Each structure stands twice: as C-alpha cells, then as structure tokens.
C-alpha cells in the first residue's frame, strides 16, 4: 500500500552561519513515514548542503548531542517527529541560543563541562556500609536519567536572557547536585557551593527547564525546589539556625 506520506514535501528553514553572522536557508525535503527532524537535516546534508554542520550520534534520544531549536522550542531533533508539525508551514531549525555557535547547528557547549568539574564528586561516608535501601535510591535514580542534552541550560532565562553564566550553574547541574546531595551514602556538603558559587537563588522556579527536558526529569519539583528547601534549612530558617547554635549541630 502506498504510504500517505510519499510525495508530501516539508519546507525547512535552517540556520546557516556562525555566531555573528548567518541566515536561514530554505530547503525542501520529501517526507517519509516516521521521519524526525534529524532525518530531514541528514537528507539536506546528503542531497543539498554537504557542508551543513550538525552534531548527532545515537538517533535514539539517548546521547544528547542533537539539541537545537525547532520552531523556537528547545528539542532533540531525533525526537521531533514531523507528524507533530503542521507541514503546510515551514519548520525553523536553529542552533541553541544560549551557547556560542561554532557553525550552523553546532554549538560550543564546553562551558557546561567546566561547571561540571567544579561540583564536589560523590564522597562516601567513612567506613561506609555499602548497603542501601531501595526506597532511598529510588529518588536519586530519576536524576541519573540525564543525557546532558543541555536543552534545560539553553532555555533557562537566567542563562538565555540574563547571561549570568559565570554566577549560575544552571538546571542540569542542580540535577546532578540533587543526585549527590540526596544520595544516602554521600557525606559531602554542597549547600554552600549551591548558594554561593552555583547561584541557585537566581532560579525563580519558572519551570522552563522541566518543560523541555526530553528525559522527563521533574527538574524543578524534584531537584531544584528540594535543594532550595535544604538551603532554607541551613541559611534562612531562623528557628533552625538558633536550634543549631544552642545544640551545636551542623
């Protein structure tokens, strides 16, 4: 049976250029059933623009390489099916806005790796008994789903609009810190780093990171807000502070 998708064309406007100069170039791509935006970019690369730069790896929404902005929304191109778009209108594909463009759809995301290096790694308690209860690890399991696509970093207005990169670590790294801070066997304290160096207070919990996460991590509700509450315990709750002073607890 002939596929209803055959013969239908989709119009794409793809960004071509670098950080200071570029333009959107129009391409027409024949649509196949089950096609995703990354397939269309590959088609363009193969047939019309062999010098089109794009980063990708798994085509299975697992490596986090193919982040871009499709019709203005941060997405994984390999997870954006064409049948979710109105093919009578053109589809815009742009690189991530918050990171310097290297060429076309490829951005320099190395700032994220620098932030990552500053996070205190997992530090087990002394004489750790390496047995954990399932109920205690369930919570941190969610944070390990992160594929480092940096869509959350890209959409976060603290980075995107206010460009506070040096002072603010961003949602991806709050997720990582949440996974370490809530780990039942971890002994390190990262709360002061979170408050001072990672700038969690700049986050105004407006939830765009959660909206774009392709791994459906509840970044704001399960990572950022619980961390903010722990920071309140330590730095803003007057009764807890007095209690700690009197009883000399940490």
């Amino acid at each position, binding site marked *: 049976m002939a596929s209803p998708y055959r013969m239908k064309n989709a119009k794409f406007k793809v*960004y071509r*250029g670098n*950080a*200071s*100069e*570029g*333009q*959107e170039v129009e391409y027409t791509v024949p649509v196949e059933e089950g096609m995703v935006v990354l397939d269309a970019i590959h088609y363009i690369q193969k047939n019309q623009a062999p010098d089109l730069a794009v980063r990708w790896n798994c085509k299975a929404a697992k490596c986090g390489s193919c982040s871009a*902005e499709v*019709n*203005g*929304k*941060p997405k994984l191109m390999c997870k954006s099916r064409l049948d979710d778009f109105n093919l009578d*209108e053109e589809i*815009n594909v*742009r690189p991530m*806005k918050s990171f*310097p*463009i290297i060429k076309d759809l490829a951005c320099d995301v190395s700032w994220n790796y620098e932030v990552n290096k500053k996070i205190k790694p997992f530090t087990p308690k002394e004489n750790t008994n390496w047995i954990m*209860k399932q*109920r*205690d690890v369930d919570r941190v399991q969610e944070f390990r789903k992160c594929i480092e696509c940096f869509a959350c970093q890209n*959409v976060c*207005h*603290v980075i*995107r*609009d*206010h*460009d*506070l990169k040096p002072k603010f670590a961003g949602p991806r790294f709050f997720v990582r810190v949440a996974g370490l*801070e*809530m*780990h*039942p066997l*971890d002994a390190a304290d990262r709360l002061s780093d979170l408050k001072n160096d990672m*700038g969690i*207070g*700049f*986050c*105004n*919990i*407006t*939830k*765009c990171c959660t*909206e*774009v996460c392709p791994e459906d991590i*509840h970044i*704001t*509700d399960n990572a950022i*807000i*619980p961390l*903010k*509450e*722990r920071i*309140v*315990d330590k730095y*803003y*709750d007057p009764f807890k502070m007095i209690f700690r002073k009197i009883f000399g607890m940490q």
Partner: protein
Amino acid sequence: MVTILNQSKKETFGTTQRKDLWWLEPLVYAIGLGLFLLYATWAAFQGKNYEFGPYLSPFYSPLLIFDWWHFSPAFLILWIPAGFRATCYYYRKAYYRSYFMDPPACAVSEGCSGEKYTGETTFPFIFQNIHRYFLLGATVLLFFLWSDVIKAFNFNGQFGVGVGTVVLFANTFLLTMYSLSCHSFRHLIGGCMDSFKCGYQFKIYEKISCANEHHMFWAWTSLFMVGFADFYIRMCSMGVWTDIRLL
C-alpha cells in the same frame, strides 16, 4: 549575506520563533489571579455579609472581633493565606511569568539586560524563603475551617445539610489538599532526609509526593473555591440567593 542572528545583540521583548500561542497561558493566569485579587480585596473591605445561618465565610474565619480593631475583621487573618499563596512555589512561577514577564514564556525573550537580574537572592524576593512559616500559619487556619464545616451541619441544634455545607466542605477539602501538596510540607516529612527512617515514613512521603505532582491543580481549584464560598455566603446573607436544604 543577511544577518538574521547575532548572538551578542539583545533581543526586544517577546522575540521568539515559537509558533504556538505562547502568550495565552500567562494571559489566562494573569486574568485569573487578577480577578481573584480584586474580589478578595473587595470582600475583605466589606466587613459585613460574611455569615449566614451556620455558615461563616472562609475569608473571615476565625472570626476575630475586638474593640480596638476598627477595620474589617478579615484583615486580621487574611495576611496568612495571602502570604502563603504569595510565597508558594507554584504561584511564584505563575506570577513571575504573568506579571513580571521574567520570563513571559519559555524561549520568549524578556528584552532586558542581564546584570540587574537578582532572582530570589535579594530583597524583596529573598523573603520567599519564609514560605514554611506561612504553611504553619495556614495549617492553624485549617483547623478553624474544619470546625466551621462541622458547624455548617448544625441548623439550630438539628443536623442538616445545605448547599452551603457542601460548599464549605469542598472549600476546606481543597485547601487541605493544597496545603498537603505543598513543597515545604514534602520537605518536612521526608524530603529533608537522605535516608528514610522507616517504610511508613517513605509511604507517607510517596503519597505526599503524589499530591505534590498536582500542586497546580490544588492551587487553582482551592483558589476558585475559597472565592466562591465567600461569594455564596455573601449572596445568601444579602438575600439574593436562597440556601437550599438537601437534608
């Protein structure tokens, strides 16, 4: 070559490539919150028509009447739920987006320069951190609201159920769910620990987390219902509506 994107240049407010109706959600929330604020302020200033039969408006509960207080009794208590909602993690998202446009929607430009932004690190927003104390205050108010529900079954010493009883019950139930699904409460009952003390604590934490996932739902339904409960009692007390007895 036509320059259509320059990463070093600031964009104007509202610049986006999004093709959906991104402005609809912040607009609906701005109208919803605005209407409630207007009504609640007006109702609080009235200082009358807050009681009818066994019913007491939640805006005026507990009813505190003192000789030295010359304003509406609503103001003696309304600062607690107002503070609770203003510092609520969900409403913060809603009003930062709808009123402060910070951001107006995801991937929509705010059109302002970055350096001035301080988020919740400085006055006044640093005070969002006292949310847990408003939770405490709101929990105390809930006891009074439940006692109002019990009183709403008592029609001159006789057990009965009127539409107002149902309205007050629904209102208090929704407010209870709103408080139980609060992020600070979730932190208090287990979120603050890396290791749960026992299976029961984990079970409770799981249940509260489940309610917490729908915090936005409880926030809006309870907001609507608390306004409606006051309106219903006000209408009955003014003789505009008749309270129908169901039992």
